[in-house]
């Protein structure tokens, strides 16, 4: 089926770039990845070959223009920059005392001195959200990076070597995936004093599993490519094949996955914050701020609830949309290959 489809439009031709906007005769997102992957398999480095046959946009410009076509993705990138600025640059401009608690100013509604009211401990809510955002974003990014790195190596080894190694490595992943994760989090929360590093490790311990599965599947198909066989024939050792030849070809998929992983980690961090596992005070997280708001739900302290909820939702949403936009870029790149 895939062979009969017309080649995808070039970026310069004025045709819409996104698969979503292509005419009904076009291909769905899923087939768009598969089609070029099979048809260009014999051409080792398809990019240079295609470049001789028809004018090519430089890869980076192509990627940027594909990304820029997706207005929502661009908007979410802007939103994310604003949120990062709010959390990390905000406290430099907007000074609040986030260490001392004061019961005199507890649970005050918004007013000139406290634009978003105060927390149950009498701290400024707006400043609190900035502090909470710092740990939330740090966890999100750190988990995405660690989980991606670990899952990448695990999946590469399983997929490339196959056989017994694959069976053992993937059964471990299966076993860990069938453990209801939050039950362990609650257990940990009751036993240890958590800190940022530990929380990152805990969330990473579950986050890398899906990456490992994804990478293993990709590596399984990539290892049969001619350029891998060629490298093997030249006597390249497995580490070189894995990281010089296979990894660059699945980097796009992994980056998209990593972006979505940031969103998932932020959600998970919020959830475990609700269950009592979070950074020790005076640091805080959006999940913990939100939990305090929920505990005061029936008192009508809306300023303790909705701003934190809004920040979580908008950040997760932005990362998810950004991941979607990046996926378009990657699929476009795969089509060119």
């Amino acid at each position, binding site marked *: 089926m895939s062979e009969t489809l017309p080649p995808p439009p070039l970026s310069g031709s004025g045709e819409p770039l996104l698969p979503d906007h292509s005419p009904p005769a076009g291909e769905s997102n899923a087939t768009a990845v598969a089609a070029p992957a099979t048809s260009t398999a014999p051409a080792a480095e398809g990019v240079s070959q295609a470049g001789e046959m028809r004018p090519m946009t430089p890869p980076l410009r192509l990627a940027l223009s594909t990304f820029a076509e997706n207005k929502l993705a661009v908007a979410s990138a802007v939103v994310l920059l604003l949120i990062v600025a709010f959390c990390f640059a905000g406290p430099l401009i907007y000074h609040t005392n986030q260490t001392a608690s004061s019961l005199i100013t507890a649970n005050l509604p918004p007013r000139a001195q406290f634009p978003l009211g105060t927390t149950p401990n009498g701290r400024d809510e707006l400043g609190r959200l900035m502090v909470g955002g710092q740990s939330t974003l740090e966890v999100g990014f750190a988990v995405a990076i660690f989980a991606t790195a670990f899952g990448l190596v695990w999946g590469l080894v399983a997929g490339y070597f196959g056989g017994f190694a694959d069976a053992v490595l993937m059964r471990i992943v299966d076993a860990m995936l069938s453990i209801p994760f939050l*039950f362990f989090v609650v*257990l940990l929360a*009751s036993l240890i004093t958590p800190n940022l590093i530990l929380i990152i490790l805990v969330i990473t311990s579950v986050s890398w599993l899906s990456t490992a599965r994804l990478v293993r599947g990709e590596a399984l198909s990539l290892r049969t490519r001619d350029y891998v066989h060629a490298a093997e024939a030249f006597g390249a050792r497995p580490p070189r094949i894995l990281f010089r030849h296979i990894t660059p070809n699945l980097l796009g998929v992994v980056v998209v996955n990593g972006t979505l992983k940031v969103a998932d980690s932020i*959600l998970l961090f919020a959830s475990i914050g609700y269950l009592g596992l979070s950074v020790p005070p005076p640091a805080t997280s959006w999940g913990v701020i939100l939990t305090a708001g929920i505990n005061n739900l029936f008192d009508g302290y809306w300023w303790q609830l909705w701003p934190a909820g809004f920040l*979580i939702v908008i950040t997760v*949403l932005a990362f998810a949309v950004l991941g979607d936009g990046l996926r378009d870029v990657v699929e476009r790149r795969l089509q060119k290959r």
Partner: protein
Amino acid sequence: MTGYLVRRFLQAVLVTVIVSIIVFLLLHALPGGLVRAQLGPRATQAEVHNLQVQEGLTKPIPVQYLIWAWHALQGNLGYSYKMNQSVGSLLARFLPRTLLLVGSAMVLAVAIAIPMGLWQGKRRNRIDDHVLTGTMMALYSMPSFLLGVVLIVLLNLDIRLFPSTAQNFGTSVPVDIADLVLPVLTLCLGNVTYFSRYMRSATIDNLLEDYVRAAYAKGASSNRVLFHHVLRNSLTSTVTLLGLTLPYVLSGSLIIEALFDFPGAGLLFWNAAQTRDYPILLGVVLVVTVATIIGNFAADLAYSVLDPRVRYT
């Protein structure tokens, strides 16, 4: 087919064993240990040692594991000194409620997601598809406890329709049903997102397949193609997803039960964690995990029924 089932079953057993070892080691590797938690910080060394001998904690770890596993196989999951009941009897009371909560939420989620995904796949990139996708994205972006709070505010505080806590669960059937509404709805809405997303892309993929073109060529109506041909082929991936999401849904039930005070296995576990009631913690994690593995196995069975290609290989 039999070979596949046997292999799949052995795999499930193997995973269960691995998980039980992980659980066992985790609990024994934790600081403080079982005896300290039971006797408190002021117990003397001799008292600690006596209880360790009595509980068999001085034996080598592998032996301890085998004893524990043997007892667990016979349904003896230990005794909770804090609740003064056996873990088995506690679970017999609390686990069915959690299964009811999770089961209703999953059934409802699938019942919503399948028609919705089909519809969205059929009407891809139209305005209604975009609206639904946007709504689902917003639901996905909410932590489940925030979603629960939104529902409490809308359906409890604003129009006083359903109770926001399920403390009275188990008193009478009408009370139970009313108590279940908000927890089930929260858990369900959080999962509709995943299912409908999968269903949508499966539908889109299947609509491009040759058999759809053949069905149209035979003169089948658009509805017949959608509900007769595409539905069955799209269902297969959703069924697998159902098995895979089970651990997440069970995890989710922990939060939902804590939020709504729903007296199920999650709340039992939550309270046990506050009091460091190890036998309960160990028992609940094990039982919940085994439930997940059984669920996964059932999903694979259903998959092989739905997809003949699995059955005949």
